[in-house]
C-alpha cells in the first residue's frame, strides 16, 4: 500500500509541476492544487498507513489511528480550498483587467 501511495504522490507532484510550468494561468492554478494534494497524500503515507479506531473515545479498541496527520491534512485541505478559490477569482479578475491569461505576457517591467 505504501508503494501505491508513494507512486500516487509522485504522479501528483509530476503532473502538478508540469502544469505549473505551463503558460496558462488556469493550468498553473490547477497545478498548485494538484501539488498540494500530492503533499497531503505524502503526509498520510509518512505518518504510517494503519487502520484503527478513532482515538480518545474509549480504550477498548485493539488499535488506534493517529489523529494528528489527519487534523493537519484537513487543515491543509481547508486552507488549500480557500487559497485556490481566491486564486481563481484573482485570475479571473486579472484576465478581465489585463486581457490575457498567458504568463509570458504578464511578465511586465518595472516601469509603467
Amino acid at each position, binding site marked *: 500500500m505504501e508503494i501505491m501511495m508513494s507512486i500516487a504522490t509522485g504522479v501528483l507532484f509530476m503532473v502538478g509541476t508540469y502544469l505549473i510550468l505551463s503558460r496558462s494561468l488556469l493550468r498553473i492554478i490547477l497545478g498548485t492544487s494538484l501539488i498540494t494534494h500530492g503533499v497531503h497524500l505524502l503526509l498520510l503515507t509518512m505518518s504510517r498507513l494503519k487502520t484503527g479506531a478513532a482515538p480518545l*473515545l474509549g480504550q477498548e479498541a485493539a488499535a488506534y489511528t493517529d489523529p494528528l496527520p489527519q487534523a493537519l491534512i*484537513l487543515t491543509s485541505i*481547508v486552507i488549500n480550498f*480557500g487559497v485556490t*478559490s*481566491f486564486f*481563481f*477569482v484573482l485570475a*479571473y479578475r486579472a484576465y478581465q483587467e489585463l486581457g490575457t491569461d498567458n504568463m509570458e505576457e504578464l511578465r511586465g517591467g518595472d516601469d509603467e
Partner: protein
Amino acid sequence: MNNGDVILQTSTKIILFIIITFSAYLFFAGHHNPGGGFIGGLMSASALVLLALAFDLKTVRKVIPVNYRVLTALGLLLAVLTGVGSFVFDVPFLSHTFGYFDLPLLGKTELATAVLFDLGVYLAVVGVTMTIILSIGEDT
C-alpha cells in the same frame, strides 16, 4: 443564468430539504462520530449552491436574504467567544465541558459547550463557501 430546467427545479425543491436535514444530522453527529461543523457547513452550502444552479442567484438572494460575509463573521465570533468563556471560569483557553440534562421531549440529553464552537464553525463555513461561490458566480 436561469436555464429554467423544470426537472432540475422540481427535484431540487425536494432534495434541498433532504440535504439540509442530512447536514443537520452530520452537524450533531460530529460530537462523537464522523461529522461536525465543517462538513455540515459544506453540505448546507452545497444545498444552497444547488438552489442557485436550479433557479438563479437573484431568486436565491430573494428567498434567503443573508449577507454571507456577516454570517462568516458571526460564526467566527461565536467560535472565539466560546473560547473566551474560559477566561471567565479561569480554565485554559478553549476548554470545553459537558453535562447531562433532562429535557422535555428528548429525555436525558448530553449538552456540550463544544457544540457552540462547532455551530460557529458551521456558520463560518457556510458563509465563506457562499461568499466565494457568489463572488465567482455573480459576474457572469
